[in-house]
């Protein structure tokens, strides 16, 4: 029997959330606005208009490349990618061909136990998924067999196209075009075909998403289309089951074909599309045929991929250097400056949380899942450190972590300061140990012999008086229910 092995690469498009578009001053926040209201001569491709690149977009592209461990070639340029489509106003897309901003990067992913976790945690809500993901990371960390490096071929800068809407007007099928999205900055990330399963693909994408969100350069909102995923899949035959392929295959070992699945908008759909394709392709290979090299669409309702009739038999993009934009040359100082601007990324933060705050990997993974949560947590820690100096409270970073992870505090409503206050109140409540409480109750009872007698005589309402006295003795920090119970016991 053949030992089939999926060979998967990913192309990911991410819209940057700059204020203005890539090559003109139109507002880049186009989503949900009236059609064709965020357009100017440049992004509409009017005769005579010229592009001028957005500095911030280019810097963010470089920063993403750096976050993905890319080399930043000192000389880079834009190129024209020529093709006709109604959503492409100039008849070419300004993109990058042979001198992209970032090349030869890599990302480490942790893959152990993903599948078993899927089975153990069949829940579907986002929170559960996140925790499951964090756990799979935590379980896998430091386990050499489960750490894998996915190489990143390039990260380059380009512009988005307009949006096509298909509909019927006056009984006639037609396509409507809105150019608000035209020329919104778009970064394309291309991996090497180092991925071997749909799970690896999903883990890679989630981590990429996490990094992009950490950098704050895009919402990466897949529903809105600001992050678009395109896996390319082929199935090869591994040399022998006992000698599995090396992760980093040479080009020559790759299958002779490749199937690209276009524009998928969720990690789960990517996983499903890859699984579907692997099965479909293996079926063809088992018949002794070779799957056709093509671009396929993803039908999320049916859960299948489908052949997209190619509009042109041959794509020939006729790339050439964009004459309207001078090349970009970085100095090493500039690159260093961009490196310094990159915030602490999830992997590093996770390790630091473990080391600095004594957290378990599991907790640290959940807290660093999103930058906002991690920052909230650290802000809480700073607050408690202040409190530790002023008051004698007994809170640990672990306790704050537990609160955030388990109590599900709404971090958008409760400030870190409020959270720490809340925790410290609760902590003090339970901190008073019963021996001390017994001592105070003894004192109160002997000091108030009359009330004790009254109680025993049936005037049970004096209990509230005694309770008040004990609370006063505890400076209001006591747990009233507990004290009441203890008092009743003693007075019996």
């Amino acid at each position, binding site marked *: 029997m053949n030992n089939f092995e999926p060979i998967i690469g990913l192309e990911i498009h991410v819209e940057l959330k700059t204020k203005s578009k890539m090559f003109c001053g139109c507002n880049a926040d186009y989503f949900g606005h009236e059609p064709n209201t965020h357009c100017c*001569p440049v992004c509409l491709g*009017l005769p*005579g208009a010229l592009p001028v690149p957005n500095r911030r977009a280019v810097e963010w592209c470089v920063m993403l490349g750096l976050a993905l461990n890319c080399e930043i070639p000192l000389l880079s340029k834009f190129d024209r990618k020529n093709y006709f489509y109604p959503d492409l106003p100039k008849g*070419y897309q300004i993109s990058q061909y042979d001198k992209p901003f970032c090349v030869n990067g890599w990302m480490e992913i942790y893959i152990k136990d993903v599948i078993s976790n899927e089975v153990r945690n069949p829940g579907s809500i986002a929170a559960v998924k996140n925790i499951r993901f964090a756990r799979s990371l935590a379980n896998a960390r430091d386990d050499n067999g489960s750490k894998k490096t996915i190489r990143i071929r390039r990260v380059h800068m380009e512009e988005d196209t307009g949006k096509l809407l298909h509909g019927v007007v006056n009984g006639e099928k037609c396509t409507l075009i809105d150019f608000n999205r035209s020329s919104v900055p778009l970064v394309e990330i291309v991996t090497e075909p180092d991925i071997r399963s749909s799970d690896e693909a999903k883990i890679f994408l989630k981590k990429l998403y996490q990094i992009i969100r950490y950098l704050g350069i895009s919402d990466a909102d897949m529903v809105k289309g600001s992050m678009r995923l395109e896996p390319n899949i082929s199935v090869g035959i591994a040399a022998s089951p006992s000698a599995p392929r090396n992760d980093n295959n040479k080009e020559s070992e790759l299958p002779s074909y490749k199937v690209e699945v276009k524009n998928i908008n969720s990690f789960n759909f990517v996983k499903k599309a890859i699984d579907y394709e692997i099965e479909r392709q293996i079926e063809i290979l088992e018949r002794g045929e070779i799957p056709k090299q093509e671009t396929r669409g993803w039908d999320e309702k049916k859960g299948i991929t489908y052949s997209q009739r190619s509009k042109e038999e041959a794509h020939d993009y006729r790339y*050439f250097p964009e004459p*309207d*934009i001078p090349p970009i040359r970085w100095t090493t100082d500039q690159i260093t400056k961009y490196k310094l601007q990159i915030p602490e990324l999830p992997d590093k933060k996770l390790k630091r949380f473990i080391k600095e705050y004594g957290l378990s990997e599991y907790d640290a993974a959940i807290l660093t899942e999103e930058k906002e949560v991690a920052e909230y947590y650290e802000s809480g820690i700073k607050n408690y450190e202040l409190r530790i100096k002023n008051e004698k409270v007994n809170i640990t970073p672990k306790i704050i972590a537990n609160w955030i992870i388990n109590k599900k505090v709404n971090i958008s409503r409760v400030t870190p300061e409020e959270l720490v206050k809340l925790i410290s109140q609760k902590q003090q409540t339970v901190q008073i140990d019963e021996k001390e409480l017994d001592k105070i109750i003894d004192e109160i009872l002997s000091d108030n012999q009359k009330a004790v007698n009254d109680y025993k005589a049936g005037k049970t309402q004096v209990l509230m008086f005694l309770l008040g006295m004990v609370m006063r003795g505890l400076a209001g920090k006591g747990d009233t229910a507990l004290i009441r119970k203890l008092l009743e016991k003693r007075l019996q």
Partner: protein
Amino acid sequence: MELYQLSLKELIEGLKDKKFTRKEILVSFYTRIQKINPIVNAFLTVIGGNNWNDKEGELSGIPVGFKDIYVTKDIRTTAGSKVLENYIPQYNSTVVQKLVSKGATIVGKTNQDAWAHGSSGENSDFAPTKNPWNIDYVPGGSSSGSAVAVAAGMCPVAFGTDTGGSIRLPASFCNVVGLKPTYGRVSRYGIIAMASSHDSIGHFTRTVYDNALILNMTAGKDPCDATTSNTNVPDYTKNIKNGVKGLKIGLPKEYLAKGIDPNVEKIFKQVLQKYEGLGAKIIDISLPHTEYALAVYYIIQPSEVSSNLARYDGIRFGNDRNRFGQEAIRRIMLGTYTLSAGYYDAYYLKAMKVRTLLIQDFKKAYEKVDVIITPVSPTLPFKFGEKTDNPLAMYLSDILTVTMNLAGVPALSIPGGFVRGLPVGFQIVGPNFSEDLLYQVGYAYEQVTDWHKQKPKL
């Protein structure tokens, strides 16, 4: 003397001295256009009536013409092509905006070879412009209408574009002064792109001084054009009278090789004698890669054209691609082919490398000389239809002008004389951003000749 016969300088000074009014100027030119345009067909659109710009500025009362490749807000802009026969732009090009804000009145949009593809004006999708010196002859192209408008007294200043000689050639054929500035000196924003890495934005005037006055207003960095330069913009009239005594003028041997009409050569030799008489030194130089320039040009230029004309799909503006004329189709096809898979390295990449050698030729030459002088056209103006069936023969009209566009250097075309009543010009070519020097050299010649004072009889 009629007001329409005055130079820009004379008009501005006359206004200052209250010799005449703005209205008198505009009426004089407008009347002239009404009379002459039906004969020479220099304007595709004439803006008449009372559409005068009442903005106060240096150019208040001065009529200007723009080649129909300059985008003008609310004024039809065709690029000489049926694809854009009804296109009304939503914005102004930077140069138009600059001129209008200085008070200039746009009197019309001038005729041209469609998309600036051509050396004779015959590729206009409407009807060709005629040479005012003899209407059986072509005026040169592609900025034919603007050259003729100035030569025939329909406006003192008209704007053109020079991608491979499209200002200098018609200037030479029509006996006017035409500047191809350094690439990046004047903004290309809002000027319909032909070949983006060559397109230079210049203008026609009757005198060298007028030409310098206008460059003072158009030159400079434009935030809307990333290829414009920050290089300081001097007052181009400041050193104009400094003369050429002791100046080293380079004479490149490759520009007088085979294929030059003996009549053109004769006039050119007389020009050199004048300069020697003025105290300049003529120095023989070589620009060794010159013979390859046209081949480089006819790879890079159509490649860029094929991409720049892709936006004309009839969706957002204009008619669809079926309305392209034969020359546009030819260049789109040629450029698509040279960029296509399998050919890029042999053609486009190779051409870009030879382009580097052409630039080095000029750099080396300017170590020895201050400016270079050459003829503009290898031939006299030719008759209509003479070259229309042979595209390659037509392309060869640009053989002495394309090199400057490939190298980016500035060049000024100056009237140099007449042969059988037809004008012959020459060009002064300088290092990047040496327009002030070109004006100085051109002005010195103009002062000792009176070609520029001759007027065509219409």
